[in-house]
């Protein structure tokens, strides 16, 4: 347990430092979300209908930003080999990395989303659902991201391949997350949040095994 906590704390600290990703992801999230109304037009009624989707897509893109550097730096300088020899199994290492990614990317943007919702004219009654959907769905983004990051380790130009690979796998999160916000806006009861929670639950629980296996293959050369 303490090995997990140590690794988690290390990665979170690294992400918040100068070369880390936390501020960058948040800034990218805001930039994309602001770009949308500038491109689409500022009619409040139109903006309100697309706000949930825009914020969700921006969240996905911001989460994708740091993924190719999730394991690669540690593999390059040998840290991953040392960690693999330690008390924490590779599945635990993958979980710690995914958790640190969520704490430094998913969680901050979930907390910032109400501000963006106001910018995008989302009605107040849907903001709670928006924050809840992001809180439930962003861990799945980090978990699925850890699988794809582990699978694309040491790929040259892996940074371009990773979004293509991960996109079909995280579509359920976007569809159900944005769908939940839309349903809340229209006042319709919807199972979208439950489906999102199910997707998130399964992804978070099972991803360490896939990511751990991929890490094992990457290390065994």
């Amino acid at each position, binding site marked *: 347990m303490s090995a997990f906590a140590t690794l988690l704390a290390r990665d979170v600290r690294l992400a918040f430092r100068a070369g880390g990703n936390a501020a960058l992801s948040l800034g990218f999230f805001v930039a994309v979300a602001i770009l949308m109304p500038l491109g689409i037009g500022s009619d409040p009624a139109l903006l309100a209908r697309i706000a949930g989707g825009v914020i969700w897509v921006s969240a996905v893109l911001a989460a994708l930003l740091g993924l190719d550097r999730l394991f690669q730096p540690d593999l390059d300088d040998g840290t991953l080999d040392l960690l693999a020899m330690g008390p924490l199994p590779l599945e635990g290492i993958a979980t710690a990395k995914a958790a640190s990614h969520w704490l430094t990317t998913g969680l901050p943007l979930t907390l910032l989303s109400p501000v963006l919702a106001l910018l995008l004219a989302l009605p107040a009654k849907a903001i709670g659902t928006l924050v809840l959907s992001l809180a439930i769905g962003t861990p799945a983004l980090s978990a699925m991201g850890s*699988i*794809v990051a582990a*699978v*694309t*380790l*040491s*790929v*040259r*130009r*892996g940074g371009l*391949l990773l979004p*293509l*690979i991960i*996109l*079909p*796998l995280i*579509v359920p999160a976007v*569809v159900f997350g944005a769908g939940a916000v839309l349903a809340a806006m229209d006042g319709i009861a919807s199972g979208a949040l439950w489906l999102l929670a199910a997707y998130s639950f399964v992804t978070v629980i099972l991803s360490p095994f*896939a990511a751990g*296996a*991929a890490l094992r*293959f*990457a290390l065994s*050369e």
Partner: protein
Amino acid sequence: MLQFANPKRFMDATASALPWLSALTAALFLVGLYLSFTAPPDYQQGDTVRIMFVHVPAAWISMSGYAFIAVASAIGLINRHPLADVAARQAAPLGAMFTALALITGSLWGRPMWGTYWVWDGRLTSFLLLLLLYLGYLGLWQAIEDETRAARAAAILALVGVVNLPIIEFSVDWWTTLHQGESILRKGGSQISAVFLWPLFTMAAAYTMLFATLLLVRMRTAILERRIRTALMESAA
């Protein structure tokens, strides 16, 4: 399949089998196309019902192709069967082509039938995602240079993505959709009349044989390429 773990035995067996498989494929296509063109026009859809004989088998093969890749990947990871990874890799471009074919023919069918080339419902969206999964899988194989590493990474990716297949299958039940629901494998028997089922199943058999024949050709080519590379490296040493 274990007797074909030896590439040489695989090459010998397929060398003798391929002419027969090609002939069978051609025959099935001839019969299937004849039946498709002589089937009567549907009372609602008219002659456009014939697109079904091209569209539905393509969709069936693209889903079976991905299932095949997933099974081959699992066998490659667990049993370390030497040809499993070759089979998975060579099946992917075929599956991707059939997926694209299904999407295009379905879109062409949708225009006269539903009034639109595309709609973002559960079935069409998850089928488009299947195409993206195929492309990502192919991209991963291309991007990793070491073949053994590429095989393992791609195997994990294929197995993670296989969850899309039941979603495609059941999407027409779970969500409201323009797409046709389950008409063939239903309780109470098929809803489609036999005069349409015969061309459909013949074309499906033809597509399956085409997939199998092309897969074997691709696998033989891959094994030969590997031999050439090895020979070049040995001669350079």
